């Protein structure tokens, strides 16, 4: 793997971004967006996670496709667990 030495100001920029997003997500939770509160919260969290993965964990700078495969596969498997379970729960009678 190539030794990409990322300039430290990129790390600081990502750090600032993460801090801002943290404050935003906390503040937004007090605003009534109806069902969108959850979606917004998860979107912000996912964006924060992406910043950490791509920059702090160097995935943006790696030429190793296998790393991205591992990440995508693991997330996909987690979603499999969540959504196939939901296939049962969302189609039962009684509980909504």
């Amino acid at each position, binding site marked *: 793997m190539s030794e990409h030495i990322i300039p430290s100001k990129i790390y600081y920029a990502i750090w600032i971004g993460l801090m801002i997003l943290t404050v935003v997500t906390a503040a937004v939770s007090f605003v009534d967006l109806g069902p969108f509160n959850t979606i917004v919260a998860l979107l912000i969290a996912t964006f924060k996670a992406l910043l950490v993965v791509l920059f702090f964990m160097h995935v943006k700078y790696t030429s190793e496709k*296998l790393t991205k495969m591992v990440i995508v*596969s*693991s997330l996909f*498997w987690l979603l*499999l*667990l969540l959504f*196939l*379970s939901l*296939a*049962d*729960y969302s*189609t*039962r*009678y009684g509980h909504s």
Partner: protein
Amino acid sequence: MATAAVTAERENYLNKEYGIRSWLLTTDHKRIALLYLASITFFFFIGGFFALLIRLELLTPAGDLVQADTYNKLFSMHGQVMIFFFLIPSIPAVLGNFLVPLMIGAKDLAFPRINLLSWYLYITAGLVYLHCIVMGGVDTGWTFYTPFSTAFSNTKVIEAGIAIFIAGFSSILTGLNFVVTIHRMRAPGMTWSRLPLFIWAHYATSIIQLLGTPVLAITLLLVVFERAFHLGIFDPTRGGDPLLFQHLFWFYSHPAVYIMILPSMGVVTEIIPCFARKRVFGYSAVALSSIAIAVFGFLVWAHHMFVAGISLYSAMIFSILSYMVAIPSAIKVFNWTATLYKGSISFSTPMLYAFGFIGLFTMGGLTGLFLAALGIDVHVTDTYFVVAHFHYIMVGGAVMGYLGGMHFWWPKISGRMYPEGWGRLAALIVFLGFNLTFFPQFVLGYLGMPRRYWQYPPEFQVLNVLSTAGSTILAVGYVLPMVYFLWSMRYGKIAPDNPWNAAGLEWKTTSPPPTFNFEEEPVVTWEAYNYDQLPEPQEVSLER
């Protein structure tokens, strides 16, 4: 024969160092494989002992050998020991550990110390489980269903859960080691399409181990917490859902059966071309079907829950998916058959086990399709039909593959030949004993005999007696190889480097191999299974 005599004196991984410390602190993947061999054989006996007690109780309709509570413990612990302490590690931790580096031309696995850690985790788990047995055992069924396991059982559920949790980490680390090794440590020229299909099978197995086992781990942890702190996550009287446990449990435990069968399929795919003297038919299909089994295997888990209370809609989805997962397995059976076609077949011991595997796995697999049909499942679920189905795959399939592999690679592992006559005899005894034990169980299940019951109506007795008789024959068939393998280490014929004239890098080094596997790093310039280029072996001799 003169060269063979010299081979036995040469330094190899067995005679390089002596003493217990050189074994308990080894990082040599081949020695670790033998450490695992001893340990899993020990647990095989424990699990087999429970099985014998079960079959003895079932000789008579009345519950007269043990009490009902004891019987519950017997089948629970038989299942847990056999699955977690024998089947899951068996081929990967013994044959996989030994052969993966050899087959790809590497000196060792990527992480030798983690390999040793994996064994120590297994031993720790085994000791905790043994302690659990001694302190009264567990009676929840191997499946730990809630709320019985969390709120009602009076047995050592927490201990059993912790033991299996630890064993799970052993399994995860083995899988991790294999994936990194196969990606990073292949010898020059060993491209993905030249890999033995045994390697593809272990790669697929390792993916399942990595992605599935952690879910079992967290589920068992939640059961332990619930039982210890009276939480209510799985307690229906307090808003919990017992089915949530089942979803999480089976998310791992269904793919787990593919952990148990894929390596065995890999073994069979090595044996058949060798004793048919032909290249594997459809290399890519077999390789990709291994990956397909690993992936599809994660999509079908709720077929264990058809009558548990899941919605009909999701039951239909899982039923369709369960039919789909049979397809890659069927592809393998077609490919093995096509490999045999017009081959020059010799009925050596490994080949007998491979034949047994194909027939019995096919029966087990097809009966799985019966169970995947919702209408049929309503009638035969939780009966002996299911018991027969999974034993056909796990014992008729996985264990026969394991034994076939042990015989095939025994010369490489030990430097000695096992006695071929006894090998063939034992294989036949296993085959006959197995079928006598488990075929009657298909009939029993169809007739309605429930599983996990300690007594049964008298009209089922004849079939049960047949089954028990079969189990004693099966036991003889299992003990025989243990005896003659041990015997061969002292008195067996010295093995040449390649007694079968088989293809594969492991046969290009000495039997047994040196500690670092190859005198010189191999450079691969040929395709896999190049049997058209290899000389015919001598007739596999029957002399002792």
